[in-house]
């Protein structure tokens, strides 16, 4: 599944990094509002689904080689978050639907969880 597929599935608006959408393969996702949980459990290359929009979300993504973040419930991040993400080549998307809905849709379409994927290895 590409990030473009994901954007279409959850009807997301692209805030930055749109040029990579079709080329970026996103096999897994992790949904969380706690940075340390993300740092502990999110796999590199996974989509991060979150309701937090502050700049530390992008920092967290940088640390883990996460290349895409989806904000839920229409929460558009502040400009500094978007600027840092652009600089770091991290794609930011925002969807109007809830975290539960976004996760449900993507899970049904075959996006894998990070933990399970790790356990299967």
């Amino acid at each position, binding site marked *: 599944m590409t990030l473009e597929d994901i954007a279409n599935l959850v009807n997301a608006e692209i805030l930055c990094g749109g040029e990579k959408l079709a080329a970026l393969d996103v096999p897994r996702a992790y949904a969380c509002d706690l940075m340390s949980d993300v740092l502990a459990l999110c796999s590199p290359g996974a989509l991060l689904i979150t309701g937090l929009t502050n700049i530390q*979300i992008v920092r967290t993504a940088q640390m883990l080689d996460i290349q895409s973040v989806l904000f839920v419930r229409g929460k558009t991040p502040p400009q500094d978050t978007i600027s840092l993400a652009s600089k770091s080549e991290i794609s930011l998307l925002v969807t109007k639907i809830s975290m539960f809905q976004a996760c449900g849709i993507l899970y049904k379409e075959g996006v894998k969880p990070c933990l399970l994927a790790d356990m299967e290895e």
Partner: protein
Amino acid sequence: MPEPLDLEYDIVADDYQTAGEASSNLKETLKMLGISSPICRRAAIITYEAEMNLVIHGGGGRIIANIDEDKIEIKTIDQGPGIPDVALAIQEGYTTAGDQAREMGFGAGMGLPNIKRNADIFEITTEVGKGTTLRTVINFTSE
């Protein structure tokens, strides 16, 4: 394998805006030195969690990274309040973080456990009222 290199960063207390810049810079440097992605990520997680602890708990401080041919040592040093009970502090879920940190997604009490999990050597030296030093080492052979 890279040449030995030392990096130092000053970290400001309660500055949630620039927090993470040092960790990001360290990670970029490691990548440029050609160090493998898994090791870079482990170093980044350790540094970032430790940097956030300086910001949130330590009253600011210093990050010192010594990159060697076969390992990286990452230390944080602060003159903050110290940790009264280290065994308790490294338990998953234990936190004394305040509302501001929590609102930003920190304060899950998973920072020290994350650091420990990613380090081959993990040592905390602390004295209440004096400060805390965290020392970690990652061996490049320990992927």
